[in-house]
C-alpha cells in the first residue's frame, strides 16, 4: 500500500479510527449547544444588529452620513469592501488550488475556510451595494434590456467587471462548498436520532448513498470545480485591483496591482483562517486533526504571501522614484511622510515586518504567537487598503482640492456590524455543519494517520 515518506509528520494524530473521526466531528452537532457558543453567538448577534441598524439609517438618511467629501470620495466603504473580498480568498485557494496541488493537509481546514470565504464575500458585497445610495436600484448593475427601465451598464468600467467577477466567484465557491458537504450531511443524517433534524439533513444530503459511483462523480466534479475555481481566485482580486489600477490616479495606477492584490488577499485570508481555526480547534477539541504542522504550513503561506506583498510595496516605492514622474513620486512621498504616514507605517509593520517573525520555528509553531500575528496581519491588511485608497486621493493633482477624511459613527458602525454578521454566520455554521471534511479526512487516515504510519496498530 502507498505510504508517504517517513520524514513527513502525520496529519492525523493519535490512535484514531474511522468511527472516532465521525464521533469527533458529528458529535458536537448532535449534542446540546455549549454555553460558550450561546454567549459568543449572542454577542456577535448584538453587534450584527447594531450594524444592521447603521445600514438602515444609512439607507434612510443617505450616503452623506458617511464621512466622504468632495476630495475623498472613497474611504472606509471601499476599504472594507476590498478587505472582506481579500479575506474571502483563502477558502477557495485552500479548496481549489491546494486540491490541484494534491496537498493533503488542506482536508483539515478546507471546510471552515470555505465557509469563511462565503460569509466574507457576502460582507464585502454589503459595501458597494449600499454605496449605490438607492439600494433598491442595485439590479441596474445587471445587463438588463433598456426597456426594463435601466440603461445598459457601462462595460468599460472596472466596477462593472467586479459585479461579474464577484458574483461568479461567490456562486462557484458556494457550489464547491456545498458539493463537499453532501457526503458529510449524509453521515449526519444516518446517525441522527431526532426525526425532524434527520429529515432536514436528509434533504440537505440530496439522497447521497455512498455508492462507489457517487464517490467517482464526487471526485470528478471536485476536480472540475477546482479547475474552474482556480482562475477565479486570481480573477476576483485582479479585477478588484483594476478598480484602482485602470485609473490615472498616482498611487492607484500601477501595473503590478493585479498579482500583488491577489497575493495580499491570500495573505489576509490565511490570517483570518488562522484566527478562526485556532479558536475552533480548541473549543471543539479538534487538536488531533488541526495540529501544529497544519498551523506551521499556514504560517509558511503567510510568510510567502507577506513577502510577495512586501516586494510589491518596495517595487512600487522604487518605481515611483525611478519613473521620474513628479506626481508618481509625490504620491509615495506623501504616503510615508504625509498626514496619513501613520497608516503607511502601520501597514508596513503589520504586513511586511511582523510575518517575518515566522522564520523562527519557535514562533511559527507557537499557538499564542500565531494567534496574535494573525490578528496583526488582518489589521495590517485593512490599513493597506486604507493607505492605497485614502492617501492616494486625499492629495491629487490639484493642491487646492486637497483634503482629509474623518470617519463618522455610521462608517465605523457599519464596519463593526459586518464583523458581527460575519461571526454570527460563522458560529451558526460551526454549530450545525460538519466543520471538517470528515469523509475526505477518512481517505488519508491510513496514509497519514499517526498510528498507521508508525505501524503500531497494523
Amino acid at each position, binding site marked *: 500500500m*502507498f*505510504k*508517504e*515518506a*517517513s*520524514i*513527513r509528520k502525520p496529519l492525523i494524530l493519535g490512535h484514531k479510527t474511522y468511527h472516532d473521526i465521525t464521533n469527533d466531528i458529528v458529535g458536537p452537532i448532535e449534542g446540546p449547544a455549549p454555553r460558550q457558543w450561546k454567549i459568543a453567538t449572542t454577542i456577535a448577534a448584538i453587534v450584527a444588529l447594531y450594524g444592521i441598524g447603521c445600514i438602515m439609517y444609512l439607507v434612510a438618511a443617505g450616503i452623506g452620513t458617511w464621512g466622504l467629501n468632495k476630495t475623498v470620495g472613497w474611504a472606509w466603504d471601499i476599504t472594507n469592501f476590498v478587505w472582506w473580498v481579500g479575506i474571502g480568498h483563502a477558502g477557495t485557494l485552500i479548496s481549489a488550488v491546494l486540491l*490541484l496541488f*494534491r496537498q493533503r493537509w488542506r482536508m483539515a481546514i478546507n471546510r471552515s475556510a470555505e465557509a469563511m470565504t462565503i460569509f466574507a464575500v457576502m460582507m464585502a458585497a454589503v459595501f458597494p451595494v449600499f454605496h449605490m445610495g438607492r439600494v433598491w436600484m442595485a439590479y441596474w448593475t445587471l445587463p438588463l434590456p433598456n426597456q426594463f427601465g435601466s440603461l445598459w451598464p457601462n462595460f468599460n468600467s472596472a466596477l462593472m467587471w467586479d459585479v461579474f467577477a464577484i458574483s461568479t466567484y461567490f456562486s462557484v465557491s458556494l457550489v464547491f462548498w456545498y458539493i463537499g458537504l453532501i457526503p458529510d450531511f449524509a453521515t449526519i443524517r444516518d446517525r441522527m436520532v431526532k426525526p425532524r433534524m434527520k429529515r432536514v439533513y436528509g434533504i440537505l444530503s440530496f439522497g447521497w448513498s455512498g455508492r462507489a459511483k457517487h464517490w467517482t462523480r464526487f471526485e470528478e466534479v471536485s476536480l472540475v470545480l477546482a479547475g474552474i475555481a482556480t*482562475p477565479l481566485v*486570481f480573477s476576483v482580486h*485582479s479585477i478588484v485591483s*483594476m478598480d484602482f*489600477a*485602470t*485609473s*490615472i490616479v498616482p498611487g492607484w*495606477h*500601477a*501595473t*503590478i*496591482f*493585479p*498579482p500583488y492584490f491577489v497575493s495580499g488577499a491570500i495573505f489576509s485570508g490565511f490570517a483570518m483562517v488562522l484566527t478562526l481555526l485556532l479558536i475552533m480547534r480548541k473549543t471543539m477539541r479538534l487538536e488531533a486533526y488541526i495540529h501544529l504542522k497544519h498551523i506551521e504550513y499556514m504560517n509558511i503561506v503567510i510568510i510567502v504571501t507577506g*513577502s*510577495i506583498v512586501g*516586494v*510589491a510595496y518596495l*517595487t*512600487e516605492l522604487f*518605481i515611483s522614484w*525611478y*519613473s*521620474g*514622474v513628479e506626481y508618481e513620486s509625490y504620491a509615495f512621498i506623501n504616503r510615508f511622510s504625509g498626514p496619513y504616514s501613520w497608516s503607511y507605517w502601520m501597514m508596513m509593520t503589520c504586513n511586511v515586518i511582523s510575518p517575518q517573525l515566522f522564520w523562527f520555528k519557535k514562533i511559527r509553531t507557537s499557538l499564542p504567537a500565531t494567534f496574535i500575528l494573525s490578528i496583526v496581519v488582518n489589521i495590517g491588511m485593512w490599513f493597506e487598503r486604507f493607505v492605497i485608497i485614502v492617501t492616494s486621493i486625499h492629495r491629487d493633482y490639484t493642491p487646492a482640492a486637497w483634503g482629509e477624511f474623518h470617519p463618522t459613527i455610521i462608517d465605523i458602525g457599519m464596519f463593526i456590524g459586518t464583523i458581527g454578521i460575519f461571526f454570527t454566520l460563522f458560529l451558526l455554521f460551526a454549530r450545525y455543519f460538519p466543520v471538517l471534511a470528515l469523509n475526505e479526512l477518512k481517505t488519508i487516515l491510513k496514509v497519514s494517520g499517526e498510528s498507521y504510519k508508525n505501524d503500531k496498530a497494523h
Partner: protein
Amino acid sequence: MVHDNKLHFTFPKKTRTWSMALMAIGAVSMILGWMFDKTDHHQYWWANLLINGFFFFAVALGALFFYALQYAAEVAWSAQLKRIFEAMFAYLPYGLAVVAIVLLAGQLHIHHLYHWMDPNVHDPNHADYDEIIANKKPYLSAWFFWLRMVVYALTFLLFARAFRRWSIQEDELGGIDLHYKQYRRGALFLVFFAVFSSTIAWDWLMSIDTHWYSTMYGWYIFSGMWVTCMIFATILVVWLKDNGYLSAVNTSHLHDLGKWVFAVSMLWSYLWFCQYMLIWYSNIPEEVTYFQTRYEHYMYGMWAIFAVNFAVPFYVMISRDAKRNTKYLTRVGAILFLSHFFDLYMAVIPGTIHGHLEWGIGEHAHHITFAWWFEIGMFLGFLGLFIYVVLNALTKARLIPVNHPMLKESEHHQI
C-alpha cells in the same frame, strides 16, 4: 528497481556531435552576422547576443529557483528529477558570462544597447542631456550597477554550488541532515530570488527602454523564465526516458511536469495581459510609449507571441491526456520554448534597433527589419551550447539521487 547501468547517464556520441554542430552553426552565424551588421556599433549583433545570453541564462536560473522551491515546499514527486534541474543550473556560469560580456561591452561603449550607459545623457551641459535618465543616476550609476552584477553572480553561483555539493554528498552519506540543510538553504535562496528576479529584469531588460517603467515588469520576466525552464526540463525528461533512463518516472510525473508547463503558461499570460491592459487602458504617455514602439514595427509579431503563448497551452494542454502524452508534451513544449524566445526578442529588439537595421556585405547595405538566418543561427548555436553543458553536467553524478528521503514516495507517485 532501477537497472545499474542506467543509474549513470552517458552522453551519446551522436547527441554530442549534434550539439557541437549546432555550436559551429552559431559560431559561423556570429562571424558572418558581425560582417553583415552595418547598424551603428553592430547594435543588432549585440542585441541578439543579449537575447540569447539572457534567454538561456534564464532557463538555468529558472531551474535553480524550481530546485529550491521543491525543497522549501517539501515536494516528493520531483525527487527523482532533481539531477535534471541540477544539470540545468550547471549552465549558470556560462549564461552569466555571456550577459556580462554584453554589459561590459556596453560599459566600454562598444555598443549602445543601454542608452543610460552614455555619460553624456547625465551631463547637464551636454547637448545629449536627458533629464529623465539623469534622474535615475543613483540607481543606474556604473559602480552601483556593477556592484549589483557581482552580488547577483555570487549569490546564484554560490547557492548553486552548495546545492550541488550537498546533493552529491547525500548520495554517499544518506541520512536526513543534508536534506534539512537543503530545505533551509532552499528557503533562503527563495528570499534572494524574490528580490533579484525583479532587479535583474529591471537592470538588464527594462533599462533598455530607459524612460519607460512598469512595476509588473520583473514578475512578467520571471514568469517567462519559469515556463521556459519547465519546458526544457519536460523535454529533457521525455528524451531521457526514450533513451531508457529514468524508468521509475511514470506518467504521473509527466502529468505533473505538463501541469507546470500549463500553469506557468497561464501565469505568464495573466501577467502579460494585466500589464498590457492596464497600460493600454489608462493611456498615460510615459507608459504607453513602450507598446507604441512595438506597435510601430512589430505589432503582428507581438500579438502572435501572446496568442501562441496563451492559446496553445490553454487549448492543448488543458486536457489530462495531453499532459500524459509525450508527443504533446514535446511538440507543444518546442512551440512554447521558441515563442518565449520571441517574447524576450520583443523585450529587447524594439528598444535597441527601432525597426531599422542596416544589413549587407560590402557596399550593399540595405534596410530590413530582421535578418532571419543570423538570428536562427545564433539561437541554434546557444541552444547547442546549452544542451552540451547540461548533458555534460548530467554525466557527472548519478542520474537518480539514491538517498533522497522522499525517493520512495516519488517512485510511488500516482495521480
